[in-house]
């Protein structure tokens, strides 16, 4: 099982000009190709507006492509029937960036985590009791307890909410997880816990990750391969160690230099101050 992205281009239509005419479109992705191997963690780094999120939306089939194709396990995602697409989504899940916005405030944690099991009921085939058991199993897996089952999202901290988001994504036993900046809304200390949880889950469940982030430290920590995206184009890609230790493009070098190092002696501002 692999994800194969071939020469994907996505152009958003420009503003209307008169009745029939349209202005020039905005090219969000230009000729992007990459492949993610089974069991690997693939990192995608880029600034805001570089097209990271557009790419994930294309992979999930939420956007149409202007050119190119996305193959999941050999099947072209954008040529599937709606039913086949729904089947596929049970194997391909996503954890969203903002744990404050991605959980319905009026649903209990139990209902939130059980919802994918209901939606994919024709595949999962669990009755209500079995669903509840599965939900509890998932909560334990991500480090929550049965005491949390019937609470509401507002009762949880950011890190706990992100765990709930991960449990929901894992509910239908997917093989592939897209993580769209899963830790950027969290404190460093909580971030470390969530990263370790993701690492543990990958080992236990044999998951494949597409990990999107603008934090190079996080990418380096969790990923095997990395691609750098800038204004819709892939600047470079390769194994994490290569890209980080020996960046080929100026843009990647600039990103690496901009990464604040917690060692005060490496600060670019501190050269003047004698220390």
């Amino acid at each position, binding site marked *: 099982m692999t994800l194969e992205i071939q020469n994907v281009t996505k152009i958003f239509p420009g503003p209307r000009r008169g009745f029939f005419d349209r202005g020039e479109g905005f090219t969000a992705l230009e000729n992007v190709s990459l492949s993610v191997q089974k069991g690997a963690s693939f990192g995608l780094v880029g*600034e*805001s*507006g570089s097209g990271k999120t557009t790419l994930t939306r294309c992979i999930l089939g939420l956007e149409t492509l202007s050119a190119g194709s996305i193959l999941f396990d050999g099947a072209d995602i954008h040529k599937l029937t709606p039913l086949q697409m729904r089947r596929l989504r049970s194997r391909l899940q996503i954890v969203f960036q903002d744990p404050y916005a991605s959980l319905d405030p009026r649903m209990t944690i139990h209902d939130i985590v059980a919802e994918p099991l209901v939606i994919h009921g024709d595949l999962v085939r669990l009755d209500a009791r079995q669903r509840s058991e599965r939900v509890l199993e998932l909560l334990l897996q991500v480090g929550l307890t049965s005491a949390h089952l019937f609470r509401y999202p507002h009762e949880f*901290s*950011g890190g706990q909410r992100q765990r709930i988001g991960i449990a929901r994504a894992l509910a239908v036993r997917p093989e592939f997880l897209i993580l769209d900046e899963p830790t950027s809304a969290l*404190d*460093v*200390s*909580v*971030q*470390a*816990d969530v*990263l*370790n949880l993701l*690492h*543990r889950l990958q080992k236990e469940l044999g998951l494949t990750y597409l990990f999107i982030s*603008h*934090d*190079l*430290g*996080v990418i*380096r*920590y*969790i990923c095997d391969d990395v691609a750098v995206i800038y204004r819709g184009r892939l600047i470079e890609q390769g194994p994490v160690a290569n890209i*980080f230790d020996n960046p080929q493009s100026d843009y990647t070098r*600039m*990103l690496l*230099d*901009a*990464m*604040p*190092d*917690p*060692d*005060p*002696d*490496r*600060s*670019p*501002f*501190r050269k003047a*101050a004698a*220390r």
Partner: protein
Amino acid sequence: MALLDIKNLNLAMTSYEGETHILHGIDLTIERGEIWGMVGETGSGKSLTGLSVSRLIPSPPGRYLAGSIEFRGKDLLRVTDKEMRVLRGRHIGMIFQDPTTNLNPAFRIGTQLVDVALHAGRADPSVLGLAAGASRGDLRRAAQRVAVEMLEKVGISKAATRINDYPHQFSGGMRQRVLIAMAMIGKPDLLIADEPTTALDVSVQAQILRLIHDLVEERNIGVLLITHNLGVVAQICSHVAVMYRGRILEAGPVGDVLKRPGHSYTRALLNAVPTAYTKRGELKGLNGLMPETAA
């Protein structure tokens, strides 16, 4: 005399569940030319300390149990609201975390900047380069000129035309620059920056940090930089205070605290940041680590 001298600050907040003691005796002294970093997790009280200095905590629910915040020898907790309004913006500048919610979407950038400039100018016309007793027309013209100058200074090109844009026409980094420009118009002596780069990309973050650093060099102001990013602290701060549950656990020059942390909590925070040398699975979170230190 220190620029800012916080002594034994104790703050309690009231909620439906009763009064909670939030800050337990904060002591902090900031001199001109120093950039103090204040690090800690969510809920450690670092933002409330910052807000206390600009006295933006409404009371109730807030209540100061003890302590003083002396700004150039004057206790901010005891000045009148009217005096405080003059200090705020004119002598104490503030930048907040989210540049999107801190600009009014219905007004042009220029209008908002000129408002701030006029406010500072009314209190002290010399800020706008005018003599005392300048006419209102002069003030307004000067305020307009200063607004454009400040916008140029924080690195926004074509400031004279961009000033007529609305906030949504600016990117996140540019909005944060506008907020910095706004905070610097009154030529404050003390700048309080509450997570100024948390919502920004690393490359933009580097630019904003450079901007703050250059302002300190140029104007010799004092800065209180509130953040949870130890990388940012290591980059630009001269001193750092580590906060945990309303207490300062450790404070001192950045080199000493980050290189030779004296407190296990500081060490744990440093270990939670993934660096180039951290192996997968070696990162340590702080879950369950802290109860013994928490009093």
